């Protein structure tokens, strides 16, 4: 249980044969993390034991050390979007999953996030999305944050799109979004405004249900 610190430390960069200090730097620090028990995770999330097992096996195979850091995460996410550049969006996504803000995702974070997204209530999903958009975690989404998110999403599309991306399409998208969401027109969107506006949107509610059987 809990975090186990390996005691082998290795500095990969210092194998510069010009200095030939490899002997001394054959030590490697490996942060190994083990998740809490299966029972606890089952209680905390909306997954069954089997699902958790499957999830963990995949997770462990990819990251034997038990944690995912941002670089690995970006790399993985980028593989799904070879057309464009997914690194910015992956960064925001990583921050959304990394609830404890320590630069790495453990299995618990991973599974909690997934539980919210796949098996949570509508309100929980909207809250999660709100936290994704609220980059600086101040409880408000302002135009700059939204613009960054939208730009990151458009970056994933890459260059070759139809119709071609020209002008400031992200900006227009952001303006449209604010039109819809910002009820009291004060320039920021709060969680309540967000949830209300989304619940009024029929299309979105319907789409949300589609994602339930992803796992």
């Amino acid at each position, binding site marked *: 249980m809990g975090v186990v610190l390996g005691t082998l430390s290795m500095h990969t960069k210092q194998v510069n*044969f010009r200095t030939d200090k490899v002997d001394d730097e054959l030590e490697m620090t490996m942060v190994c993390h083990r998740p809490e028990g299966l029972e606890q995770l089952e209680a905390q999330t909306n997954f069954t034991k089997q699902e958790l097992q499957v999830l963990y096996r995949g997770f462990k195979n990819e990251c034997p050390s038990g944690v995912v850091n941002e670089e690995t995460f970006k790399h993985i996410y980028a593989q799904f*979007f070879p057309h464009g550049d997914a690194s910015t969006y992956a960064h925001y996504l990583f921050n959304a999953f990394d609830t404890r803000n320590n630069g790495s995702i453990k299995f618990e974070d991973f599974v909690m996030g997934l539980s919210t997204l796949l098996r949570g209530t509508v309100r929980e999903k909207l809250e999660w999305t709100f936290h994704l958009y609220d980059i600086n975690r101040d409880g408000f989404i302002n135009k700059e944050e939204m613009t960054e*998110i939208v730009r990151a999403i458009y970056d994933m599309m890459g260059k070759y799109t139809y119709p071609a991306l020209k002008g400031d399409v992200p900006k227009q998208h952001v303006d449209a979004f604010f039109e819809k969401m910002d009820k009291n027109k004060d320039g920021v969107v709060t969680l309540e405004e967000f949830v209300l506006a989304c619940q009024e949107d029929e299309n979105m509610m319907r789409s949300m249900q589609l*994602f339930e059987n992803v796992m």
Partner: protein
Amino acid sequence: MAAGVATWLPFARAAAVGWLPLAKKTMPKPPVDKKSRNDEILFVNVSGLRFQTWKNTLDRYPDTLLGSSEKEFFYNEDTQEYFFDRDPEMFRHILNFYRTGKLHYPRQECIQAFDEELAFYGIVPDIIGDCCMEEYRDRKKENQERLAEDTEAENATDTPLPPHSTSRERLWRAFENPHTSTMALVFYYVTGFFIAVSVIANVVETVPCRPPKGSKKDLPCGEKYTLAFFCMDTACVLIFTFEYLMRLFAAPSRCKFMRSVMSVIDVVAIMPYYIGLVMPENEDVSGAFVTLRVFRVFRIFKFSRHSQGLRILGYTLKSCASELGFLLFSLTMAIIIFATVMFYAEKGTKGTNFTSIPASFWYTIVTMTTLGYGDMVPNTIAGKIFGSICSLSGVLVIALPVPVIVSNFSRIYHQNQRADKMRAQQKVRLARIRLAKKGTTNAFLQYKEEGGFQGRGSDNALCLKNRSSFEHQHHHLLHCLEKTTNHEFTDELTFSEMCMTESVGYRTSRSTSISSQQGVATSCCPRRAKRRAIRLANSTVSVSRGSVQELDTLQVHKTSAGPQSRSSLNARTEDLKLNCEDRDFTAAIISIPTPPANTPDESLPPSPAIPGILRNSRPTSFTHETVKISSL
């Protein structure tokens, strides 16, 4: 796509919930996954090999995977066993660790595979038993060095310059890698030539020339043609000084540069000349001045910048410093011992050469290195006995460290050979990656064309039967992204066609003002002129173009690994534009395509009204298309 990535796909799809509030259109229906997840378990153990052990055995090490509750995640209820999809051969060693308390390293396995297994099972390599520790460390060091060469080759100096380099950085780069530009190469060869000239002049200077008229004695050429040699020396020193100052100016860290070996050699090579200039023609001092001239021979070391082999040799000596030190130390010890013995043995002889112990040093050295000049020989019997012992031991003492030095040299030399091979392999690898990337991007577009989104109707079943569920889900994810942004993915050809149709429309409505260079078309089709060439080209060209595009995408990927701040976001898009500008494009209008007279880069005069000359049309040199470029 890597098989391991499949495990992350559900996660990526779940994260698509984050797009929903932004989506302009409704999301498409996801594909129905008929397979139940639990079926993926194979009812075998560690890939088929069954192991049995006590629970206590595993509990001995509670901070490993098998010893903690983590193994519950791998428990299969149906077969009542723990299943691990790992290498069964390696697992044997892992399990033996639990049994005996000692971890052994199997010599026939790859060190990295072994390390990965250890990482997976949560075992720390420190506890490898003493019997196998040496081997493990050696192999690991070797592997790391090899990997370091890989990364060095990747970050190597052959990468293109970052676009925002100052002239100082460029200069430094030109000095470090003469192959990057022709100017640097020219400078490189010129300095090499002058080094050679300088060294030869130094040598020839001392050769006796025919004496001038009216003198019998042979004069060294240096004194006969003093002026000529002085001029040559001055020229060389000027070049070297200039080079040194340039390097000093361009160096990113001046202090570090000044401390480096090559710079010290440079200074030592040119100092004698300046000291000679400064010093007066004094009798006493000129003796010292002559000594200084000896230092001019150090100019020959400047060749090490030009020769890889010299550098390797120098580096070998440096890395074998300990062996060389040992050699020196043991030789000194032996010399002193034998010199003392020889001195006392020969002390009685009349007229002996062994006048003192330091005088005997010469004899000992000459004998131990088996030179045997014969200018000093022992006469007494005792002296001869000790003399023979001396020569025998000399052979041994010198022979011992030499193989170590030789093996070091050979290792470093081969490493260098390998570096070149690595670079070639790297290119092949990159090409393969590009091809794979193209494959995945094309797969999605093909999927769309085949109308995959109409759902799995029976008429579509034929087309879609060859796709795995992973591909279906992945395409669904990409489709969701399209719906979110209300833009669709296309490929290059369609994109270029669209851009062209738009631009032709533009030409009639806008005037050609240079000032509006940053027209809308830059973001849309910065490589429009290039794209046009594709349309009329054969497929081979589009492949090469594709490779350039892939390279750019690759570059974008590489450069975008930096900190994700807003400014860097903008910088990245600017990088894209800059990439275009590196190829000398500006916005372009295309006039009516007429049959070309000659290749674009020859035909276009660089007049200010017609900027943006297609300069990199080299790969498309056989797709002639007159591209009259003006700006929007």
